[in-house]
């Protein structure tokens, strides 16, 4: 099964970081209406007295699963269906990382036991931070939280140059083979170096106990982190 691109496969009515629905992307451009930012709306939703912080119920959306399963028996089964619970689209250069992370974290805390929620929280932050850091400004960065019994997954897609995608794939393979040793190696390597720490994927694999999968389709890289729910 060839997965659709994140934009074209967006389930109708899915909320995006800009508050638009993905239905609008298929129609004519909508006029720009000034209003609260995404972060302000998320904060308001969590702070309104008497309003439950539980995200509104959405009908489950059936979506394609990752097409590659490098982890043998423990991988997500090929051909299975993923129930996407949350899907948020943002862009490189946006300041939305904190707000999106806050939203996904709250959702996970409401829905899963503490250890699973902590893994999701970590994966959502690190994968999204990577996506925002490496994507081009003009292209969406999409984060999804989904389930495929018995797995829960966080999936981030963004455009990426081929060299970056190759490095990513190599790192995922290394982390799959030995997450702990690779994590340690990455921590050692990060000491005293300027710029980004580049520990994100290693943290997701080792600290979060999540399996990783990376694939590239039509210039977009899709990184999936998943674990038993």
């Amino acid at each position, binding site marked *: 099964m060839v997965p659709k691109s994140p934009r074209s496969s967006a389930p109708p009515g899915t909320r995006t970081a800009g508050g638009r629905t993905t239905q609008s992307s298929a129609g004519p451009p909508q006029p720009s209406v000034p209003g609260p930012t995404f972060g302000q709306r998320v904060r308001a939703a969590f702070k309104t007295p008497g309003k439950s912080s539980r995200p509104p119920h959405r009908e489950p959306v059936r979506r394609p699963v990752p097409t590659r399963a490098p982890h043998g028996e423990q991988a997500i089964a090929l051909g299975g269906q993923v129930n996407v619970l949350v899907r948020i689209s943002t862009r490189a250069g946006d300041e939305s990382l*904190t707000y999106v992370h806050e939203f996904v974290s709250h959702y996970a805390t409401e829905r899963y036991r503490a250890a699973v929620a902590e893994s999701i929280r970590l994966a959502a932050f690190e994968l999204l931070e990577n996506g925002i850091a490496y994507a081009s400004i003009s292209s969406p960065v999409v984060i999804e939280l989904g389930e495929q019994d018995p797995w829960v997954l966080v999936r981030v897609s963004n455009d990426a140059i081929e060299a970056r995608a190759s490095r990513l794939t190599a790192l995922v393979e290394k982390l799959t083979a030995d997450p702990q040793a690779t994590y340690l190696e990455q*921590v050692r390597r990060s000491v005293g170096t300027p710029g980004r720490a580049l520990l994100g994927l290693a943290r997701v694999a080792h600290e979060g106990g999540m399996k990783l999968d990376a694939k590239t389709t039509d210039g977009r890289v899709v990184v999936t982190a998943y674990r038993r729910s």
Partner: protein
Amino acid sequence: MNGKLAGVPLPKLETIHVRVDPPNQVRMSGTITLRDPAKDLAVFYRALHDATIQDGIKELCVDVTALTFVNSSAIRLFADWTTWLKNTPPAQRYTLKFRTSPKLTWQKACFSALLVIAKDVLAVEDA
């Protein structure tokens, strides 16, 4: 001991609360999700490091039990701190002890790795 530690300026960050309790306690709580926490936190850690040496303290205890989430850059700063300590002359060295929460997975994994890298200067204690 001349009290330099008590005078270390605290970082002013929105999501993190830091308290220095002389003679040798530091408590950190909240989350660190800043894209570049080094700007504020590296300066703070370095000031703590220098003050601890100047005060002649032999063990600095950093309580992170209420530090619920940090990003990769923040972990790198902890690693940098252990490197400064390893590069300090033995006579001036102190033990950097982190008090951690066993309930937080990131702490277990992160500080176990740091122990491997800097076991001669680092101690980790579960709360």
